[in-house]
């Protein structure tokens, strides 16, 4: 770093301290390193980290960033799986950790106003006693923030019936790149004109920084029933899913795990999944008592057609929690089967489930790498996880190629690149698989409409021009070092 660059950074740090207070600006080398990563495989060091306490402070930070022409990256809990919160080009990381208050809960009109750093599960826990909950429930809900959920338009097992984040956000306060503070969506100003709220959700922090959110709350269902169904093969389980959906039913959740996942989850939490099964389905029904029971009978009848090895029902919340604990912990538990796993996130039409899984299975056999399949089966969101050992020469290159191949299979079957984890750094170079040059030009026009300087989370979403996705990921992994795969 040159002398003048150094003194510019010193000035910047001093100014930031004036805005948020000395204890909330970190620029020690060790401290920067702790904010280099998120839940993905990439890494990038910011120049400085700030922890503001209000939209006003964020506005000042953005103005300062613009004056210095330095990029700004918002950070929630850093659980993202596509590198969204990584300061790939250096710059200022704005951590939302201090903006974690639930500002208002209105149980009559069923909404809450929260700051972006509120942890997803904390909101449901907080409103639970009033018989309410916040529906989007990513598996990372113990840790991830509502702000991060908005930026990634996160979903979860229950989005099958209830939709993803965008279906539950009424409106939000944002700070734009020039530091102006405004409101998108309902609640303070009426939602006429363009749906700026909708555009911002899923924009991965590239259009605006979200500082306050009005979310819809749902009434906790009167009755919930979780059903575990074990099948001999994954084809049988997939066929059962197609059967359920085909009969026009929309359970609250349909999750599928293959035999690898069953083994890993059992090792980790002992949720009671039958170990001999080729796949299990976890189906959840909720609603009014009679309706749930009726639906249950129907679903059970459909599943019987595909010869389940076992059907087990959990009615009370403890038993339900136990069945879910296996599902929610399975990703981390894969570490028990192999030193590393590489999780691929893609979505396909549900009718193609059997076909795509067969292709993935063939790919696994051909390549010799086990692929554990974990699916939000109800909406066709796949998480095939390739098991490997990064210490074996060639493994990293091979699994990246397999990952790309899987995404190609998804797109060719009429699916999309990302189910819920976003594009970020990880998949930006695969965007051309799905979008034409014109599509991408239109999207960049949108970005330009918000800011021309490209300082808000630059280098995300759009391809860097390196061409092949494999190269970018291999580069990422080479930089991350051992053991850092999700």
């Amino acid at each position, binding site marked *: 770093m040159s002398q003048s660059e150094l003194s510019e950074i010193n000035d910047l740090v001093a100014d930031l301290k004036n805005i948020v207070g000395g204890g909330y600006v*970190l620029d*020690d*080398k*060790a*401290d920067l*390193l*702790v*904010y*280099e*990563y*998120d*839940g993905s495989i990439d890494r990038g060091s910011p120049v400085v980290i700030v*922890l503001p306490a209000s939209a006003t402070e964020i506005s000042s930070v953005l103005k300062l960033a613009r004056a210095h022409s330095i990029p700004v990256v918002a950070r929630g*809990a*850093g*659980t993202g799986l596509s590198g969204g919160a990584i300061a790939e080009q250096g710059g200022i990381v704005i*951590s939302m*950790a*201090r903006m*974690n208050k639930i500002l208002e809960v209105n149980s009559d009109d069923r909404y809450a106003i929260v700051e972006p*750093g509120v*942890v997803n599960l*904390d909101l449901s826990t907080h409103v639970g006693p009033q018989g309410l909950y916040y529906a989007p429930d990513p598996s*990372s809900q*113990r*840790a*991830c923030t509502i702000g991060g959920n908005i930026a990634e338009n996160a979903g979860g097992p229950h989005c099958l019936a209830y939709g993803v984040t965008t279906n539950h956000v009424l409106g939000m306060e944002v700070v734009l790149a020039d530091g102006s503070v405004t409101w998108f969506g309902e609640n303070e100003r009426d939602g006429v004109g363009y749906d700026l709220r909708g555009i911002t959700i899923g924009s991965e922090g590239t259009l605006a920084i979200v500082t306050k959110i009005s979310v819809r709350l749902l009434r906790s269902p009167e009755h919930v029933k979780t059903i575990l169904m074990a099948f001999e093969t994954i084809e049988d389980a997939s066929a059962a899913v197609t059967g359920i959906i085909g009969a026009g039913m929309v359970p609250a959740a349909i999750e599928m795990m293959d035999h690898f996942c069953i083994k890993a989850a059992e090792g*980790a939490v002992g949720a009671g999944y039958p170990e001999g099964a080729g796949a299990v389905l976890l189906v959840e029904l909720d609603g009014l008592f009679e309706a749930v029971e009726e639906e249950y009978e129907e679903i059970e009848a459909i599943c019987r057609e595909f010869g389940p090895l076992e059907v087990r029902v959990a009615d009370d919340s403890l038993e339900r929690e136990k069945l879910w604990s296996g599902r929610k*912990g399975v*990703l*981390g*538990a894969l*570490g*028990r089967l192999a*030193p590393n796993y590489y999780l691929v996130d893609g979505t396909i039409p549900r009718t193609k489930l059997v076909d795509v899984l067969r292709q993935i299975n063939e790919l696994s056999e051909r390549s010799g790498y086990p692929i554990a399949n974990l699916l939000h089966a109800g909406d066709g969101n796949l998480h095939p996880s390739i098991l490997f050992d990064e210490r074996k020469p060639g493994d990293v290159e091979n699994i990246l190629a397999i990952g790309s191949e899987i995404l190609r299979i998804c797109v060719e079957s009429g699916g999309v690149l990302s189910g819920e984890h976003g594009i970020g750094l990880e998949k930006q170079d695969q965007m051309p698989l799905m979008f034409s040059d014109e599509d991408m030009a239109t999207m960049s026009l949108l970005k330009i409409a918000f800011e021309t300087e490209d300082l808000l989370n630059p280098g995300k979403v759009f391809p860097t021009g390196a061409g092949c996705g494999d190269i970018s990921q291999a580069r990422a992994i080479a930089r991350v*070092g*051992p*053991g*850092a*795969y*999700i």
Partner: protein
Amino acid sequence: MVEAQQMSQPSWLNESELYKCVHCGFCLQACPTYLATGLETESPRGRIALMKAVNEGRLEISDQVMRHWDLCIQCRACEDVCPSGVPYGNLIESTMDRLRVHRKIGFVPRLAYEISLRYLIPNQRNLAIVFSMMNFYIKSGLQKLVRKTKILKLISDRLERLEKMTPSINGKFFRAQGQFYSADVEGTEKIQMLSGCVMPLTQGDQMRAAVRMLNRANKDVEIPSNQGCCGAINSHVGGLEKAKELARANIDAFSKGNDSEPIVVASAGCGARMMEYGHLLSDDADYALKAVNFSKRVVDINEFLDQSKLQPGEASIHKIVTYQDSCHLANVQKVKDAPRNLIKSIGGVDFCELKGSNVCCGAGGTYMITEPEMSEAVLTEKIRNLADSGADIIATANPGCFMQLDNGIKAAGLDVEVKYVTELLDETYKQK
């Protein structure tokens, strides 16, 4: 240069444990220091990232780096919630041990520190002398005088704060090594019990209550002689060699005559340490096997009593009671339900779950003395939740938690009593 060389020898960390961390962030919300600060530098994932960076030679061990590790309370809540099974306890323990060579502390504090770790805590006789002096200090009225005149504040704020932590001493010392307490019924089994280091001095009454409860559960209780401190304090602050020495001594003391009887432990932190002797001594050719066997015998008193299905006594306790998880009971020994079951079994008790009951109270063994600011920050949130809970009694299972909660309650002027779970049970047998 020396630093660089040391860094390129990553031997102190077990890489296959370290690289299990996939930085998913699931542990953030479990970490008391992250919750208190909002800083990822004070989070488990952050502390692990620093270990990785040092391990890879990307970072030197600076004062700043040590600060972040030192501020870890070693409550191991992160380990309990980690889906990847990262053994954080092992990682931080070996890191703290390694740091001894990097610390630049003055000669006098270092001497005081080494003396207390080597000669005081592990030696019951020396420790008893110190606590007798403390007892005198409290009972003679000297403490009142010191507090009233605020004389220590004149010397330093820190000293004053330390003084406030002088433990209250509950009843006579529990001098029980070599004693045998019979249940006085036929056909009972014998169990062995740890008397510990600080607990028999500060919590003599509670230790006696524990023995009575075990007798009521029809167990003869033997307190083997020549046992000593479990080594937890030494391992937390980076004295693994001394901890191993203590572990070997305890293995010998508890294996004389019989090496299969359960070893019941009334202090959660000690129980956790002893359950991991197997790991601690895994590279000791003479003791590795013995240690594994020893660890299997260790059982916490709450777990033991809960499994014995002993019915509580006649007297009921008409109070709102809550429970603070002792970290090393919940996170290391994985005992969460037993103490709650025991409390709920008492007639008259209205049990309420404390918000954040599974988050550390900030005690952390000697942490409350070495890191008073962070300890207090963590405690503040705990006391706030306690006040909101409306409880009359907060029960817990470890002497450190007991003292820390007691200090916090007194400082906040709350009308809440701190009790051991076993002490509460014991009270149900008292004649009115």
